[in-house]
């Protein structure tokens, strides 16, 4: 097995030697995957349209690439005070260093805009004052404003999350003779992983009654319903999950709930959840702020 240019350390050599064949097949399998740079840009919808479409299609079909992006976004980045001050100084310097022609150009462009507005108002007034000529003969027909096509309605992105269990679920112990939550929920979560959402939702329903304090049952049932195109039915399940979620899951619940609400046409409710997320620091902040502004603009 060929080591990377910085070589394997002893631990790596020992651990990887018996796995050489597995790793080789994985390398072949992912040799043509888009680079991490492309994947993370596509995840944020920040590629030119043609490239965005292709890489998004890949992301949708590749759990591996989605996991890579998720890992890259698992790192909490911040600017320290010194870097923040340095950046602020750079911004104010650039923003105030306008070229000398800037103000003159802006003045002229404002004058041109004002003149154009006066001409349009005058033309409208003239046409309103005149009796309307027959349509075929009208010279003003060409000046009738065309109706711009309305923009495609914005739809919040919906990506299937990895299955994670809360600490409460992992440490939950039932009666000695009984089964545990982790055992009981496993088949439903397997169905969820396999994207069999109808089976997952059905299997999770009885667990909500059996484990009324477990967050996982309503959460993964809500996700199953949402991913299975039953956004309206998912909303009350997200309500239940929100009451039971600890802080590890709170942002995810609010995000997916807002996706369900948007898809169910409850835009005001979706925006409310997004704005709460946008004003706190969590893994969903950037997406929530972006979605909130887009939902706001179409309201």
């Amino acid at each position, binding site marked *: 097995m060929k080591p990377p240019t910085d070589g394997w350390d002893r631990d790596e050599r020992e651990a990887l030697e018996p796995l050489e064949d597995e790793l080789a097949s994985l390398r072949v399998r992912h040799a043509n995957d888009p680079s991490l740079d492309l994947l993370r840009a596509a995840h944020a919808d920040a590629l030119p349209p043609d490239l965005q479409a292709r890489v998004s299609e890949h992301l949708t079909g590749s759990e591996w690439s989605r996991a890579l992006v998720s890992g890259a976004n*698992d790192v909490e980045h*911040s600017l320290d005070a010194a870097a923040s001050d340095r950046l602020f100084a750079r911004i104010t310097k650039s923003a105030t260093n306008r070229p000398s022609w800037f103000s003159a150009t802006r003045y002229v462009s404002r004058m041109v805009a004002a003149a154009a507005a006066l001409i349009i108002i005058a033309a409208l007034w003239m046409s309103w004052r005149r009796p309307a000529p027959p349509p075929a003969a009208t010279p003003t027909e060409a000046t009738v404003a065309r109706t711009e096509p309305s923009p495609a309605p914005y739809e919040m992105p919906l990506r299937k999350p990895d299955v994670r269990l809360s600490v409460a679920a992992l440490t939950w112990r039932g009666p000695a003779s009984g089964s545990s939550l982790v055992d009981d929920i496993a088949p439903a979560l397997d169905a969820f992983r396999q994207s069999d959402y109808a089976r997952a939702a059905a299997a999770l329903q009885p667990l909500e009654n059996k484990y009324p304090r477990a967050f996982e049952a309503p959460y993964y049932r809500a996700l199953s319903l949402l991913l299975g195109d039953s956004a309206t039915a998912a909303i009350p399940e997200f309500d239940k999950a929100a009451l039971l979620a600890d802080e590890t899951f709170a942002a995810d619940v609010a995000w997916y709930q807002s996706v369900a609400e948007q898809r169910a046409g409850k835009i005001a409710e979706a925006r409310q959840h997004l704005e709460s997320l946008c004003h706190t620091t969590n893994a969903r902040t950037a997406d929530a702020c972006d979605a909130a502004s887009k939902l706001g603009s179409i309201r």
Partner: protein
Amino acid sequence: MVAFFRTSEGARIQMGTFEELYRTHVQAVFRFAMSIVGNRETAEDLTSEAFIALHRNLDAIDQSLLPGWLLTVVRNRARDLWRRKIVEERFAEGVVATQANTAEPPSMERWILDSPELRPIHRACLMLRYVHEMTRAEIAARLGLTETQVKGHLQYGLALLRKAYKPSETV
């Protein structure tokens, strides 16, 4: 510089200085930029461009659109960077084959993706090191970590991998 914003009724109200807006939103904007480019220098450039745009449009934008408005500027600038990169490097040809491989994955792929003891960052480090064959320095640069952090994540992941793949106990 004093910022004015229009309310939904169109009235102009003073909401605070540009610096206050910068301090309020810079971390969210920088984080978003990092999530797109994964490189501090470029992320700072994108953040800077977004706030310069804000500075120039202070009296025209609605405060309720912040920080979303800034994030949209970051996204658009990132898109411009990629357009330039495509032209400069004839990049698009290299990413045509982006169809995901739908064949049944090897068991190790399922282990990396499903192991509940791995955090997403552990997964990414394992994938980049052992499948995409990057050096620790390259991984650190891509993920915005130090090499020591990368080494720590790899050691943790490798220990779990060894446990899962003990001889005659393959998963």
